[in-house]
């Protein structure tokens, strides 16, 4: 019988303790797997979201995030100039404001109010109705349609709020011509979008032709880096960022907290697993010292009994590791559900994202755990004095 078969029989002989050992590794492994998914999940998810918008360039007035910095002046002209660059396929200017929708709601419905320049491509997907054209038209997201119980063609009256200062702008009435999906919508977010001119008008007409961000799509032949260089050359006062640079900034931002916490928890979890599997194996070996000494006396080599102990460790960690994958996946769904309640997180962004490298790292760490946890019990078995142990067993 080979070492693996022997180790299997040793574990099966004591099913309760073997099952508990495997279950323990499964629970710890699930947590470890989740921490690995969390370490890069947010960044991968954000990168995917940025790529799905169809634009790979963001131009702002300063380094500040769109919506929190100064506006880009003469935005329509700048957008047209950018879209004419040979490395750029299309460009669209966006203005972000807030609004209170007053459609029969007693206290009004707080909404994000977006304005886009007149281009063929808009940064949303129409689900029902049609896209905005000229005139006082808006598209709304599904949450808005549900909350207001309206369909395409209905009227919306809103009061815009376009600066941080207190304002008392007059209400403006629009026709909701379509229901759209916005990539950066939060799960319960209320979003309304109109043309740049309509938003400027609703904002009191004080900041006409200004935008928070210009989003551009690069030509496939040129790539985003060349487009960034072209835009920076044409408008040196503006800040142009590719998706990769935006993600890199995002990585350095506040959400690195989750990467750090995942590193800390991964380390603690691994330490915990190593310690407990070592103790389990050591206690198990100590109970079988006489049996192991007898096997050695019967002719089992030192390496053979070492291999038996190592295989036991591999079986416990391997079995637990396999169970940890579905457990971890289920746990990740629950934890993601909890974390996505952080205000301002887009509905399509996830904290726990599967990636093959996370699975590889998980398997690697579990393999290392099996090896490290087996070291001490292996030492006990390898240095076991055969005659003295047998004598102690008989005398005891």
């Amino acid at each position, binding site marked *: 019988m080979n070492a693996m078969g022997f180790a299997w029989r040793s574990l099966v002989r004591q099913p309760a303790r073997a099952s508990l050992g495997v279950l323990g590794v499964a629970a710890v492994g699930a947590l470890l797997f989740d921490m690995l998914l969390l370490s890069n999940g947010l960044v991968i998810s954000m990168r995917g979201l940025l790529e799905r918008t169809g634009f790979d360039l963001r131009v702002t007035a300063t380094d500040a995030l769109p919506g929190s*910095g100064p506006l880009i002046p003469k935005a329509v002209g700048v957008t047209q100039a950018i879209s004419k660059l040979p490395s750029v396929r299309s460009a669209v200017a966006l203005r972000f404001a807030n609004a209170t929708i007053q459609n029969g709601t007693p206290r009004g419905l707080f909404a994000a109010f977006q304005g886009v320049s007149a281009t063929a491509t808009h940064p949303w997907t129409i689900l029902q109705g049609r896209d905005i054209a000229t005139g006082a038209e808006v598209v709304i997201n599904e949450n808005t349609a549900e909350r207001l119980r309206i369909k395409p063609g209905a009227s919306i009256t809103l009061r815009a709020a376009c600066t941080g200062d207190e304002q008392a702008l007059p209400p403006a009435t629009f026709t909701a011509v379509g229901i759209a999906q916005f990539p950066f919508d939060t799960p319960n977010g209320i979003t309304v979008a109109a043309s740049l001119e309509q938003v400027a008008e609703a904002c009191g007409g004080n900041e006409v032709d200004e935008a928070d961000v210009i989003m551009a799509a690069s030509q496939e032949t040129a790539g985003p880096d060349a487009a960034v260089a072209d835009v920076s050359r044409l408008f040196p006062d503006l800040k142009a960022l590719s998706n990769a640079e935006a993600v890199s900034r995002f990585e350095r931002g506040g959400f690195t*907290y989750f990467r750090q916490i995942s590193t800390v928890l991964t380390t603690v979890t691994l330490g915990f697993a190593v310690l407990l599997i070592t103790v389990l194996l050591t206690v198990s070996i100590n109970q079988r010292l006489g049996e192991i000494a007898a096997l050695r006396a019967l002719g089992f080599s030192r390496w053979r009994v070492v291999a038996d102990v190592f295989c036991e460790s591999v079986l416990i960690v391997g079995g637990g590791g396999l169970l940890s994958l579905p457990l971890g996946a289920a746990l990740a769904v629950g934890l993601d559900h909890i974390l996505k309640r952080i205000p301002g997180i887009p509905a399509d962004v996830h904290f726990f994202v599967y990636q093959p490298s996370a699975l590889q790292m998980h398997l690697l760490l579990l393999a290392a755990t099996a090896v490290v946890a087996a070291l001490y019990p292996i030492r006990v078995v390898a240095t076991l004095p055969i005659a003295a142990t047998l004598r102690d067993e008989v005398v005891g």
Partner: protein
Amino acid sequence: MSRFWVALIAAVLAGTALRAADDLPSVLISRQLAETERLRIGDVVRLSPTADGTGVQQFRIGGIYEPTPDPARLGAVIREVQLHLPDLLNLTRESGTPAGSEYVQRINVALVNPEDASRFSRDVQARMPGVQAQPAAGAAESTGPFIVLRRFHLAIAIVTILASTVFLLALTIMLVDERRTAVGVLRLIGFPSHRIIFQLFLEGVLIASVGSLFGLLLSLVSEGLINRFFQWRYDTALVFVHVTPQVAATCVAIAVPLGVSATVVASWALLRRNGLRLARR
């Protein structure tokens, strides 16, 4: 307001640091701004409310302060300037706006008796409709991210406790099994089962208590290490881990009964066997 600060910061970065003139109004600057721009107490800075640098006024740096830790700005380099309110209003007042007609976003109130905060806020809201008054503690507690992070950490803690329980049960089964012979002999010489289980129970209490105390010591040590690491990583004075007496009591309240239960459950199965069977070799 944020745009104003951006312009202000831009102006500070562009401004020339001059040596002090005592009659200038003083400002405080954040430690991060002082470090990045190599500004010192006594330096003169030029601040403008607009990005193009119009309406510049000179100020003397009266002090450097550590910004109040704000989890919402974790990872951001906080470049801030604090002005006296009249100086700020003078700097930002648009031409044609009479002095005294400005507004402020927020008024912080320090009460003689902080326990009156809730009553005071109710009072203010009743007397001044349209004004929102909220106790500072309540405002911090109601911030979404804190509640979500607390739930996340609680979920992680529950999974850890489950994993620990499983391991603990496996260990106690093995440890009790190791003492099978001793328990068998005790049964054979006349010790009743309840006496042995009581002894094992006391042992469980002792081990779980010592283990809990060790765990608390470990958490106190790691509290310092984790805080120092994250404070260094994010250049903030924010406290990330804080082992409060309440947290410590909760941990002990969970760990000790869990440890004792595992010992008793593992021993129970053993004591149901016959004494002779336990003592046989």
